């Protein structure tokens, strides 16, 4: 999945390199990251699907008292002397709601920042020495927001753990991008949320309480919660009529569990320390882990949502493509429904 075996190319030669974590790790600002990701992504397309979106006529209906006279079709009135209201197929802007998991487990990353950057940068801007799942999740979230904002659609952001930790209201204004970047950059997830266990259902409930139109939800999390919680949360989104793209961010060590030395294992969400020989537990762990991953995927797919598994060692092309595809599909459904 990684480009470890690929022939190295100059950074500037291929914009798609910007989708790779090692490239993202070099970029200190979210704005730059998002821009690079989107540019890198769109440079591979033949045409932009996001241009020429406009208001299209749908039908006429008779005027009734109380209707807004601004929508009267004066041309029809002139020809037929009847008051007809001109109705348009309103191409509603596609609201994107990005939910980023900032629970303790998202802080984990087995790849050092220095190794990920490849240019000697030893720590992130906030001082972390490893490239965490949260880094990967925020890069993806920023890219999604950037793409959506560039289409003048509204974007909202929720950073959550056991509850909503930070939120940016949906908007397509120019200031929204700044708010999103600020929420992702400076959110105190590293320390304050340490030990906070993800509570997806509660967060979804809180988010849904403020939304009354259909949205596209991008839920970015490691989903290290009970499967029932995942099911409940996704079911409520589906019930509210929203579409969801599920991005499950994982670390390579979590997927492969390639530890060899016996050591005390400490969790990030307040779990007890476990002194084990990892080799003795590898088979059982992988079995349980894979079963859980499969369960999340099955739940998402079963509800008709898109599911994308992202490794912190992988590039962001596939998830971004999945998002764009899902968004296009949703636009089409809206247009011709």
């Amino acid at each position, binding site marked *: 999945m990684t480009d470890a075996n690929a022939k190295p190319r100059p950074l500037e030669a291929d914009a798609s390199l910007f989708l790779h974590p090692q490239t993202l790790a070099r970029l200190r600002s979210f704005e730059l990251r998002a821009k690079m990701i989107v540019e890198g992504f769109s440079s591979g397309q033949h045409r932009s699907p996001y241009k020429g979106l406009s208001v299209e006529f749908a039908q006429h209906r008779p005027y009734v008292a109380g209707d807004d006279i601004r929508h009267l079709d004066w041309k029809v009135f002139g020809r037929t002397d009847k008051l007809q209201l001109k109705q348009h197929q309103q191409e509603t802007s596609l609201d994107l709601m990005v939910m980023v998991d900032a629970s303790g487990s998202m*802080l*984990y990353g087995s790849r050092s920042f220095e190794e990920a950057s490849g240019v000697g940068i030893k720590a992130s801007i906030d001082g972390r020495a490893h490239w965490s799942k949260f880094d990967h999740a925020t890069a993806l979230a920023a890219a999604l927001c950037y793409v959506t904002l560039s289409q003048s659609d509204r974007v909202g952001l929720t950073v959550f753990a056991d509850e909503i930790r930070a939120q940016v209201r949906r908007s397509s204004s120019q200031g929204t991008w700044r708010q999103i970047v600020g929420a992702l950059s400076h959110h105190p997830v590293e320390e304050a949320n340490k030990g906070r266990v993800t509570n997806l259902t509660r967060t979804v409930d809180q988010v849904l309480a403020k939304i009354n139109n259909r949205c596209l939800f991008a839920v970015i999390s490691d989903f*290290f919660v009970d499967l029932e919680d995942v099911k409940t949360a996704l079911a409520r989104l589906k019930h509210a009529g929203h579409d969801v793209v599920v991005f499950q961010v994982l670390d390579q060590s979590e997927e492969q569990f390639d530890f060899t*030395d016996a050591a005390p294992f400490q969790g990030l*969400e307040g779990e007890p320390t476990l002194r*084990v*020989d990892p080799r003795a*537990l590898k088979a059982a762990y992988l079995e349980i882990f894979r079963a859980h991953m499969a369960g999340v995927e099955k739940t998402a797919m079963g509800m008709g949502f898109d599911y994308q598994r992202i490794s912190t060692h992988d590039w962001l092309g596939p998830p971004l493509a999945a998002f764009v595809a899902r968004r296009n599909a949703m636009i089409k459904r809206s247009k011709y429904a």
Partner: protein
Amino acid sequence: MVFINPTLAIAGLACIALPILIHILMRRRRRPVTFGAMKFLIEAYRRQRRRVNLEQILLLASRCLLVALLALALGRPLFGAKSGLLGTPARTVYLVIDNSLSSATGDAMERLRTQAMNLLGTLDGARGDRAALISAAGPADALIAPPTSDLAAVGELIRSLSPTDSKADWPGAAARIRDDLKRTLEQEPGAAPTVALFSDFRAGSADVSAELPALGVPDGRLTILATPPASDAIDNAAITQLEPARAVMLASAGEGVSAPMKVTLRRSGSVQAASGKVILRAADPSQDSDEATRGSPRAEATYTFAPGGTTTTVLATLDLPPGATKSRVLVTASIDRDALERDNKFSRTLDLRERLRIVLLATPSDRSGIQAYKAGDWIALALAPDAEAALRKRRGEQLAVETVDPSRPLAAATLADADAILIANPDALESAAWSLIKQASQQGAFVMVFAPSGVQAHAWTDEFVQALAPGWIISGEAKAFTPPTGLQVGTSPMLRAIAGELPELLKPVTVQKLLPTTGPGAETLLALSDGTPAVVAATRETGAAGSLVYWAIAPELSWTDLPTKPLMVPLMQELVRQGVGLSGTPRVAIAGQSPALPLGAAELAPVSGAPITIEPGGRLTRPIRIAGTYTIRAKGGATLGVISFNPDTRASDTTPAAQQPTERWLAGLGGEVTWVKGDGASPAGSARPASDESSPLSFILLAAALALALVELVMARFFSHATVDTPTERAA
């Protein structure tokens, strides 16, 4: 099961803690690993906990067992061996070394020491072996007991052992071992001690006719090792006795004195005719003998052993010039060097006195005529015959007789410094007087009691017996002899100075009356023709009291005509002089034996060196095993006498003993006797069985440890769940 190397086994078993420690440290010292998916890892652990724990316990147990097996193998265990401390075959060996006089022959002592050291060398203190050391020279001394594992200290003491002048005290040594073994067996009921005896077992050392006491080790667990008896005959002569004609010599100031001495010799080994020279020397007892005898008076005599004879006596007269000696003189007899040199000398002191003070308790008489002479008169006359008055005046009165009326109260001062107390009228004495006489006797005064005449019922005998002669029975009534009976010589050697003339002098003497007596310890000096004791003596072996002579016949004409016969004067003179000589402090003692000491003696002071304290019971705080001269001192430092410790010549018998009787004799200790061959280091002489040196169980344990190590490797590999990815798998 016991161990040859218990220390290694214990140390190894302690090493079991190592894998446990490593296990604990490995858990503690690892850097913690932060992991995101702990939720699933905890779930995996919950599912696998039992299996993982079991694997860890199995691994830890196998590692501990591996260490334990190696430890046991290094400890070299033995099945069926007798157990000791911590199950080890700790050997307890009692080394008994004969350092008595008989070990002074040739290089015997050096040889015995070497053999003991060689046997000691077979022990290993590190393995818990212990050794005790007992010197057999009488009285036997437990130099190191209870046994110690500090074998170096035992070796040091063995090397410092040297021959003494006393006889081997094998029963005493056995008693010391038995007492110690009693405690050992109480603490370790399964102990199997070894007693190793190092001696030549010559006749002078081991009296095989007397049984040895059993050591009380049950079930034949006692091992007796002994050096075989010496088989070579050694010729040896020893001076067994040096006796003066009189122990107290009377010499007037400015006059010399001749001291006739009798030297008794005994030999062992050769039975052919032999002769040699005896040299007598006089010296000051307060000086070192070698220094004192240089230039001092000496006399020589030749002794001769008849063919087949083992004892002989030789008489020699030592002339002591005037002024050459003081009140005491140390006489030493010596013979030429032979195989056993230590018994070639014999010393004793002679008392030189200007006069003897004699208190005569006799009822005064008027001496109107010889018919009116009473016993006291006859006695006084015999001690100071008028015929010798001129001589007496010239020499000074050698026997100063003070006649005291017994019917008057007796003053303590009267008897205080009396050399002899002669009681002619015991019936006239009060009870208080008897107490004073008893006190004087205990302080060394010679007492001679005469049966009184003219008494119908002899009531005085009870007080006499109670005060001076416990156990004696004296008839209450005199026995008359009609016709009068004669006298004959008795068995006591007290009159040996006049023994030659005595039979002839006795011939004219007749006895009409006698107050019969019998009693323990009584030696007959003179007896009637029918054997009835007429004059008896009680020589006190203890020496704490003066000698006692009892006359059953009153020296009066109504009882006997003895006072008028020529015998009376020499008999009375000799009895007084010998009686005084035998009384008082002892002058000779035997090395290794408890000396008879006078009352009030507080310490024995050698010519040089620290004095030996005498305990209230008369026991010495430190036994004297080496011959030498000691001054007997009272508590205040006053000199009570001089005593010479001489070699115990019973140990001088160098006759070799046969092996079988010696073996039977030694077996009396309660075990089978194994003879130590040669240098004592051969297997038969080793205190540790030869089988101890190899342990077949060690190989089995080592093999088991190797097998377990392989099992542990497999388990460790399997339980680690380590896998090696093949290139194909990696690509997939």
